[in-house]
Every structure is written in structure tokens, then in C-alpha cells.
């Protein structure tokens, strides 16, 4: 919203305060300022001039050669292209040496004729919307008067961020902003000059009916004998400076009131509209707006109808064409109404029509304002056209009145919340400046909220804390620490583990962390042939481009691998992110925190698979659990043979393996791929490995090698599990030394060479001890389909 500082100064004297200080304090106390623009300084040496003569240009059909009196005493010759030139017309004229915006005016020849100056169009000067010709000034304007004496063209335009006014319906007009300035700088706010509506009490009432609770208040008054057609130059200037266009007297006045008070108004041609009925439609209605666009008004919208229940305006949004004011309008039915903010918002969104009026109504306007706005409009109208007559009494249907909020609090509460000691008097003073009514008794405060702040903004004592301290100045509040009991801080295990895993993967294994989106990437998955059935879907997928949430994390990483495949020979990426593959009994999503790793390189598949295993084991160690890779995985994106489930105890934590060749080949034929996906939360549920420390023995250890043979394909895990379960009186350590397959006499067999170290706890081992141990050990291992190779 654009605010004209000149307009503000009509209501509050801000003399002696620099613009920088004004905008800075406003920004810190009230709302965010987006820009401050000084305008009008680029209009130089422009004066009122009268056209003395008009002649056709000898060589051009659309140019005229004028003689104008610019007050200098000598008529000036100027060439002008405007169609509205005529003898006696008074207009704004820029003398040679002057300036109109970016144009410096110099003596020129226009198609061979000397031209010394420029007659200015209102649009060129920025003071009117009209582009059709030069400005037409009132005949009373005195020739030679500089423009700045006629109009406050030099101004400061302050653009306020609309978003920061969301909760301040009172700030959608200049008067409200002026009230803030008055409060901030502690200057008096001048009362509005209003027409006295009580003077019309004896006139007949208008026929206004309100049939919906969503119309809080509908005020109207009728006016006749309007003879003037155009608004004053000042009104036009202000509308244009504030980003609107001047149209005609009545439209301009209603817009002016909206910009001044924040109250949207509407003027109907009283000759066409006798009375008003405000309804909530049950059937869709069609209406053509002022812009000649036909809109369908969905049911349950607030619609302004005439006495015949024909729609004449979409309430709070847009007027209809049919009964709008025209060139020949001389009697008016003025609407000043208040509607439920949500009802207006809904209709506006449904129709797709956001207007200056609807933006304001959405903020919950103060219904008290409707009467003020009417009185103000009549006052301004009478200033312009003294012949107008009010032809009805002020007619008012006031259906919903907001309660008056009275807040009881005390100076101590306000002070403690701010962290600054303020007296009841100081607080009362600030609130009074803002229009609150305050009763002080000792420390106690009883605060009545003014109607313009009471529609949703201020109702509880915490709201007063804000009012007091934004005026006191947040920058005057001192930073202060607090005293709290010393208590140990809990750490959230998953959160800590997550970071430890990330750090280890990056620092120990050289992987790169990525962050992705939670969507399922249906197209990518389809192109790779990955089964993709989201459990939860987005209701509106238009902006994400994806329809559901991922049920598994790895495909996202494969997508990243795909995107990076031509840039890197080797890709080692991981992410810890959420997947959404399950709903609970209440239909709520069960989120899972997953770790996914994708490795891609020219290394052998076996090397990649083992690298993954090494990483997985380390991740297990970080969580304090031992992982097993001995079960098959059903993960369809992995290699059917060379993949495994990652388990711990009875828990399945995830899976890993070489990527399914179909997928791998589609992504990159030059690389091998391996992938892992692991549930991080489940890792914490996995049985913890006991961290018992075994005392060392001072007796000599004995190291023995055994060579066990079994049928080809027998897993090492079978052997290892047997060793793990082997119990003896010695400390036993073991390791795999060698693996042979199909070697010489080992046709269709596999051989594992195991090194076993036994350490006695309490004596030196004798040859007999060793023999006994070996025999028992071999016998145990042979129970799981192995035999000792002789």
C-alpha cells in the first residue's frame, strides 16, 4: 500500500521531523516499509498558462501551433499534439529550461516550426490518469502560478508491505496510518471533517434489507442533483500518487474515502436502484462487472441485490455494470457496508477476483467505520459540488456489533513481560495516544479497546504488552539473561545418532551427504521400473509436480546418481531422511527415519558390496549393536542373489546389496552400483552388544590353524556361527585366513582356513590340552556340515 506523506500531514503535524526518522520509527513501531520515494522534484518550471490562439501546423495533420500566455508577459509559441487544445483553455505549461519527469524542455523545431515549451498532459505529470490530452484546469486558475502552488506535487510516497498489515485492519487507510504517526511522535491527531448526518434524520429512510449474518452492517444514504463530473485536482493527484486511477467524480470520491479511511464504498445510480437487499445466494448467479467481465457467483456468497433481488454487486469485491453510475447519473445511493472477512475472502478466492475492497474486507474492518465514511464522503462531495442535496436519512442496518473489549491488567504484568520497569502512568499515556481509553488506579489498569482495534487484533493483556512496547521502542529494551535452575540436558538418542552417522560416513568413508525432497518421483521410478505405490498422496500436487510421499529413500538417491553420472566417475552419496510407508490404526502416517547410501563406480561389484558392509558394520557399532548380513532381502531394486537383509537379533533393520542389473544398466552402463537402506530408529531398538572387558591372561597363548571344507555355496556365516556358539575354558579369538573354492581336490567344495588363538586363564597349556581342545573344536564344527581337510 502506498501512503502519501502530504496526505498524512493533513491529519497530524509532523513538522521538524526528518523523513528518514519518520520512516525509521514507523518501521520499528508499526509495519515494514518497502520503499520511500520522493516524487514531484522532477517537475520544474511548470506554470498555469492560457491558450491564446490555435492554428493548424502547416505540415502536420495532428499538430497545432499555439500561442500561450504563461504569465511572463510575452506570448510563447509552442507546438502541441493534444486534441483538446482550444482558445481560452488553461493548462499546465512547462517553460523552456524546465523539466517534466525525465524530459528536459528545450527550444526545438517540430516538423519545421519553433516550439518553446510544452503543454503538459495529466499523465505526463503523474497527477491524472488521462492520456488523451493536456490538463484542463479550472478557469479560476491564475496564469503564471507555479504548479507546486496549485498542487502538492512534491511528496514522499511510502510503500508499506501489505503482509505486515495483515492483522491491522485500521491501517488500510491514511487516517489510520496518521494515527500511528501521531502516537509514535506524540503529536495530536486532527479529527476528520465530516458532514453532519443528523441533519437528515427527518428525511425518509432508504429501503435496505439484510438477509445474511455475513453482512455485519449496511449503511446507506441517497444524494441527488449532482452536477459536477470531475473530482478536484488534489483528489486526482492523490489517487494517482497512491497507485489508483482517477475515473469520474463519484468513483474517485469512493476510492478516495477507501484510501483515506480504509472503508470501501460503492455508489449506485439511484435512478436505477431504488433499494437494497443483501442476500446469501443459494443458486449460482451471473453478474457482469464494471470491467465488462461476467462472473459466476457461487452459492453461499454475499450478494448485493436491488429491490427486485437482481444482483447489482458482489459484496465487498466488485460492483456490477448494470446499475453503476454513468455520465448522466445525478442521483446516488451510497453504500458503506461491513461484511464478514472470511465470507469475502472465500468468494474472492472462488471467483479469482482480488480487489482493493476485498483485500481490506478480508482484514476484518471495523463496522463503526461505515457511518464515518458516509459522513466524510458527503463532506467532500459538498466541497466540490455545493449544489448536491441529500435525499434520504442515514439508513443503517447494524446486524453484528463486535463486543467492546475491556482488558484488566497492571503495570507489573506489562513490565515483566517486556523486561522494562514502566509505571501505570507511562503505560496509560502510550495507550491513550493509540486511542485506547485507560482508567488507572494505583498499579491497576482498566483498558477499553477502541472499535478499530477490537475486531480481531487486541483483546487480551498480552496484546497490550505489544502496544506498549512497540511505542516505547523495542530498541530501548535491554538484552538480559535469565536465571534458571541447573539441570542436566537430555540428548535425544536418534538425533545424536543421526549426526554421528553422518559425520562418520563423511569423515571415515568419504561419502557425500545430500538432501532431497520427500516426493516419490513417479516418472523417474517408472522409467527405471521401480515399483512405486505411495501410501499417502498430496491433495494438491500442482506445485510440487509429484503426487505422493516416498515409501523408500533409495530411489531418490538413485535419481541424484543419475543426475551426476556424467560429471563423476565415482559417486558415493548418502542421506538420512524420512519415508512414509505406513499408516497407523488412526490413519496417521508412521514416519521412518532412514539412512540410504548409494555407491557407484567402476570398482567391482564385490568391492562395492563389501564397502557397504564395512560401512554398515561401523554404523552398527555407532549404535552399539552387531549387525548380521546372513538373511535374504526381498528388496526388489537390489540384485536377486547379491543382496541381503541387515538384521540384528530378531529385528530386520534394512537391506543392502548390488543394485538390480536392470536398474543399474538404465542409469549408467559404465558403473557398478550398490545401495543400502537402513531404519535409523530401529538401530536404536536393536539389542545392544555387551561391552564386557575381558582381563588379559599372563599365560602363553597358542595359535592353531584349521582348514574346514564343505559343499560349495556353504556360507562362511554357517561356520562362524558355530564358532561363536563354541564354548570352552580358554579365551578364544578367531579369524578367517583363506578361502578356496574348486581348487584341486576341492571340486564343488569350499574351504575356509580359520586361525584360532586360545589363551588359558590359569595355567600353561600342555600338548595334551591342545590336542583335547582341537579334537573337541573339530567335532563341534563338523556338526554343521563341515569337515576338517586332512
Amino acid at each position, binding site marked *: 500500500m502506498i501512503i502519501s506523506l502530504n496526505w498524512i500531514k493533513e491529519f497530524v503535524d509532523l513538522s521538524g521531523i526528518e523523513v528518514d526518522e519518520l520512516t525509521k520509527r514507523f518501521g*520499528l*513501531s508499526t*509495519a*515494514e516499509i518497502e520503499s520511500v520515494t520522493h516524487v514531484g522534484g522532477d517537475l520544474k518550471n511548470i506554470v498555469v498558462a492560457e491558450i491564446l490562439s490555435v492554428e493548424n501546423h502547416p505540415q502536420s495533420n495532428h499538430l497545432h501551433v499555439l500561442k500561450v500566455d504563461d504569465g511572463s508577459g510575452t506570448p510563447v509559441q509552442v507546438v502541441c499534439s493534444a486534441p483538446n487544445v482550444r482558445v481560452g483553455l488553461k493548462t499546465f505549461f512547462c517553460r523552456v529550461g524546465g523539466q517534466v519527469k525525465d524530459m528536459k524542455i528545450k527550444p526545438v523545431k517540430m516538423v519545421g516550426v519553433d516550439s518553446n515549451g510544452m503543454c503538459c498532459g495529466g499523465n505526463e505529470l503523474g497527477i491524472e490518469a488521462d492520456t488523451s490530452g493536456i490538463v484542463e484546469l479550472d478557469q479560476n486558475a491564475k496564469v503564471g502560478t507555479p504548479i507546486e502552488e496549485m498542487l502538492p506535487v512534491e511528496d514522499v510516497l511510502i510503500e508499506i508491505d501489505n503482509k*505486515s498489515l495483515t492483522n491491522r485492519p485500521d491501517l488500510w487507510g491514511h487516517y489510520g496510518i496518521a494515527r500511528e504517526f501521531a502516537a509514535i511522535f506524540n503529536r495530536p491527531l486532527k479529527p476528520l471533517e465530516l458532514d453532519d448526518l443528523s441533519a437528515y434524520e427527518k428525511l425518509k429512510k432508504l429501503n435496505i434489507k439484510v438477509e445474511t449474518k455475513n453482512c455485519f452492517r449496511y449503511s446507506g444514504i441517497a444524494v441527488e442533483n449532482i452536477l459536477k463530473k470531475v473530482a478536484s485536482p488534489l483528489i486526482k493527484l492523490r489517487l494517482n500518487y497512491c497507485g489508483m486511477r482517477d475515473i469520474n467524480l463519484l468513483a474517485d470520491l469512493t476510492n478516495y474515502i477507501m484510501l483515506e479511511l480504509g472503508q470501501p464504498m460503492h455508489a449506485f445510480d439511484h435512478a436505477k436502484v431504488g433499494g437494497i437487499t443483501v442476500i446469501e445466494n443459494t443458486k449460482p448467479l451471473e453478474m457482469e462487472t464494471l470491467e465488462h467481465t461476467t462472473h459466476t457467483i457461487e452459492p453461499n456468497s454475499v450478494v448485493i441485490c436491488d429491490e427486485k433481488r437482481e444482483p447489482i454487486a458482489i459484496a465487498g469485491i466488485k460492483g456490477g455494470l448494470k446499475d453503476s453510475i454513468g455520465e448522466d447519473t445525478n442521483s446516488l445511493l451510497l453504500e458503506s457496508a461491513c461484511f464478514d472477512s472470511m465470507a469475502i475472502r472465500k468468494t474472492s*478466492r472462488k471467483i479469482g477476483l482480488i480487489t482493493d475492497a476485498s483485500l481490506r474486507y478480508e482484514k476484518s474492518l471495523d463496522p463503526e467505520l461505515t457511518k464515518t465514511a458516509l459522513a466524510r464522503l458527503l463532506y467532500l462531495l459538498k466541497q466540490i459540488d455545493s449544489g448536491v442535496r441529500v435525499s434520504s436519512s442515514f439508513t443503517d442496518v447494524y446486524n453484528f456489533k463486535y463486543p467492546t473489549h475491556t482488558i484488566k491488567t497492571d503495570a507489573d504484568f506489562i513490565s*515483566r*513481560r*517486556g*523486561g*522494562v520497569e514502566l509505571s501505570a502512568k507511562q503505560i496509560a499515556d502510550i495507550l491513550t495516544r493509540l486511542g485506547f481509553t485507560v482508567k488507572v488506579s494505583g498499579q491497576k489498569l482498566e483498558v477499553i479497546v477502541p472499535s478499530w482495534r477490537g475486531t480481531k487484533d487486541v483483546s*487480551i493483556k*498480552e*496484546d497490550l*504488552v*505489544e502496544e506498549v*512496547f*512497540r511505542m516505547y521502542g*523495542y530498541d530501548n529494551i535491554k*538484552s*538480559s*539473561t*535469565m536465571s*534458571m535452575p*541447573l539441570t542436566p*540436558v537430555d*540428548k*535425544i538418542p*536418534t*538425533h545424536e545418532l543421526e*549426526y554421528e552417522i553422518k*559425520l562418520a*560416513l*563423511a*569423515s571415515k*568413508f*568419504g561419502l557425500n*551427504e*545430500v*538432501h*532431497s*525432497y*520427500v516426493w516419490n518421483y513417479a516418472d523417474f521410478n517408472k522409467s527405471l521400473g521401480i515399483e512405486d505405490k505411495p501410501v*499417502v498422496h*498430496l*491433495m*494438491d500436487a500442482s*506445485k*510440487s509436480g509429484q503426487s505422493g*510421499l516416498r515409501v523408500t529413500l533409495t530411489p531418490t*538417491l538413485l*535419481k*541424484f546418481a543419475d*543426475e*551426476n553420472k556424467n560429471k563423476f566417475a565415482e559417486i558415493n*552419496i548418502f542421506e538420512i531422511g*524420512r519415508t512414509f510407508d505406513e499408516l497407523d490404526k488412526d*490413519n*496417521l*502416517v508412521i514416519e521412518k527415519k532412514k539412512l540410504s547410501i548409494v555407491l557407484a563406480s567402476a570398482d567391482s561389484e564385490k568391492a562395492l558390496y563389501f564397502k557397504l558392509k564395512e560401512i554398515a558394520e561401523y554404523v552398527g557399532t555407532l549404535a552399539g549393536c552387531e549387525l548380521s548380513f546372513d538373511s535374504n532381502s526381498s528388496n526388489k531394486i537390489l540384485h536377486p542373489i547379491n543382496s541381503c537383509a541387515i538384521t540384528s537379533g530378531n529385528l530386520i533393520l534394512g537391506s543392502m546389496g548390488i543394485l538390480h542389473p536392470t536398474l543399474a544398466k538404465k542409469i549408467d552402463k559404465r558403473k557398478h552400483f550398490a545401495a543400502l537402506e537402513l531404519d535409523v530408529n530401529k538401530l536404536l531398538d536393536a539389542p545392544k552388544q555387551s561391552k564386557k572387558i575381558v582381563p588379559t591372561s599372563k599365560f602363553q597363548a597358542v595359535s592353531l590353524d584349521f582348514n574346514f571344507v564343505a559343499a560349495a555355496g556353504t556360507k562362511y556365516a554357517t561356520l562362524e556361527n558355530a564358532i561363536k556358539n563354541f564354548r570352552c575354558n580358554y579365551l578364544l579369538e578367531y579369524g578367517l585366513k583363506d578361502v578356496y573354492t574348486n581348487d584341486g581336490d576341492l571340486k564343488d567344495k569350499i574351504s575356509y582356513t580359520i586361525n584360532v588363538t586360545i589363551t588359558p586363564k590359569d595355567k600353561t597349556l600342555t600338548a595334551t590340552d591342545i590336542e583335547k581342545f582341537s579334537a573337541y573344536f573339530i567335532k563341534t564344527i563338523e556338526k554343521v556340515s563341515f569337515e576338517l581337510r586332512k
Partner: protein
Amino acid sequence: MQNKINEIKNYVVEKLSGINAQADCQALRVEILGKSGKVTELFKLLKDVPEEKGKVGQILNAGKAEIDALISNKEKALANAEIEKEINSAEKIDITLPTGAECGSLHPRTIIQREIEEVFTSMGFVVEDGNEVETEYNNFTAVNVPENHPARDMQDTFWLDNGEVLKTHTSASQNRILKKYAPPIRAIFPGRCFRNEDVDASHENTFFQLEGVIVDKDVSVGNLIYFMKEMLSKIFKKQVEVRLRPGFFPFTEPSFEMDVRCPFCDGKGCPTCKNGGWIELCPCGMIHPQVLRNGGIDPEVYSGCAFGLGLDRMTMLSFNLNDIRELNSGNLKLLKQFKIK
């Protein structure tokens, strides 16, 4: 005896002059000083010496010591020569060659998030973890977002077909945290948030925030300023200045926008602060009494403040990134630069 020992000595001197290997030296030691070496044999004759045994013994011992020193010196010389030779024949290793060991990287957000977490944990804050999918109650109602608020609209929020939402702000975790801990509470909770928004260089539909709450008796605006100032000073590694401006959020009253005096130009004006000298960084405020009540905390007894820091924005500021989309892009050309120290 003297003559005999001198003879051996001369023999040794002569032999040593011809020796070039440590092994030969060792052999000579055995030949002279070994169990049946020449000097040892002389000592055996000592028992047959009729008189002045002591004097003769002294002569022998002195001679033996002299010979031992001769051999030892030669041995040392040879050992030194050998090391010298090994050194001189060594290949000169060019240690400036690259190692080939590749360093992994953390996502820049993770780096900044951890840094901020550490500042807060050092001040006694607990770090909580939130959900990404939230109920309508937690995301909106619990934090005082009115029933008809535009934020609940389909065009602003990702609604899911089970009735839940992708959380639109970290505040969605407030209710759970207020209920979990009794005052005094100091907690931060980072998390991924979502808005149904068109994506461009400065807008993302998926972004990270880090929210904090402090609840105790008499928490004031002054306390909020303190924590923000301390945290940002640690992050930017210099004493920073902050300022509050009015803001509006349903979950806080009063609400503020917090600006920091641009740490990159000290407020003089630079592209980062768009020459304004201040950077808008953090919406914050005093927790709305209704939010406390919804969390089971009596607002007549306790008050609190909350802040929501844009982790993406902090990350972009810290690493001078200018396109928010990079953060979720998986662009390894960029991400690999965030190497682990």
C-alpha cells in the same frame, strides 16, 4: 706378555684395515675376543705366570680393552657407513604428490544446523526432533492458528489424503514439546518444513527451520533479545547487534521480526543486506497464552518466548549461496565442496 698382547693388537689393526663388512668385523671379534679367541687364550696362560700375577693381569686387561675399542670403533664406523649408504641410495619421495584419499562432505545445512545446535546446547537447551507429517491440530490449532486462517488453505499448505499435513513450520512441534517437558523449558527443534509454493531462486517448497522455545516464570522480551544476540554472535563469530520490529504470527503475542546488523559489512551496506545495513533473519515473539494453555502450561504463572530461524537462509548467508534450490538439488559439484575437516 706385553709383547704377545702387542702382537695381537698389531694383527687386529692390520686385519681391521682390510675389513669392509660388519660380518667380517664380527668374525674378527670372535677370533680375538671369543671363547677361544687369541686374547682369551692369553688369559688362560695367566694361571701359569709365577709372579706378579696382578701386574700381568693388568697388562692383559688393558690390552683387551684397547683391542675391544679398536674393533668396536670399526664396527660403529661400518654401521654408520651402511646407514649413510642406505640414505644416499634412497629414492627421493615427492611428498607433494596427491594422496588420492577423498574426503567426504556433510550437507551445508547439516554443518550450520550442528553449529547452531552446539551454541544452544552449551546454554542448556535440549535438541528435539520433530515429525515431517503432522496432524492439523499440531500444525495449526495447537499453535493458535484460527480455523479460517488462509495458511490452512490448500494453496498454501500440502494437505495429504489422510487428513494430515506436511508441516508448514517447526512450530508444529511446540505442543508436543511443551507437554513433554515441564517448565523451565529450554528446547530447540530443527526440522524440514513444507509450503505449497512455486519454487524459484529464493522460494522453496521444502526448507529447514530451527525453532526454539524458552518457558519459565517471567520470561521477557529482554531475555529473547539476549538469546538471539548471543546465538548470532557465536554463529557469525563476532559481537552482533539485533533489533526487533513488529511482526504478526498467531502463535506469539507480541510478535516480532528480528533483524541482525549485517555481519558482512557491519551495517555499512553491501549486496547481502541489499544496502540496508540490516538482515531480516528470524521471526520470534512471546508465546501466545493460548499456545501455552494448549501445551498444559498456565500462562498466568509462566511466560515464554519462541523463535524460528530459517536454517536455509542461515546456510545461504554463511556460505554465500544465492539459489535456495541448490540445497535440495543433489548437485555434487556444489556439495562436495563442503568437505569434512
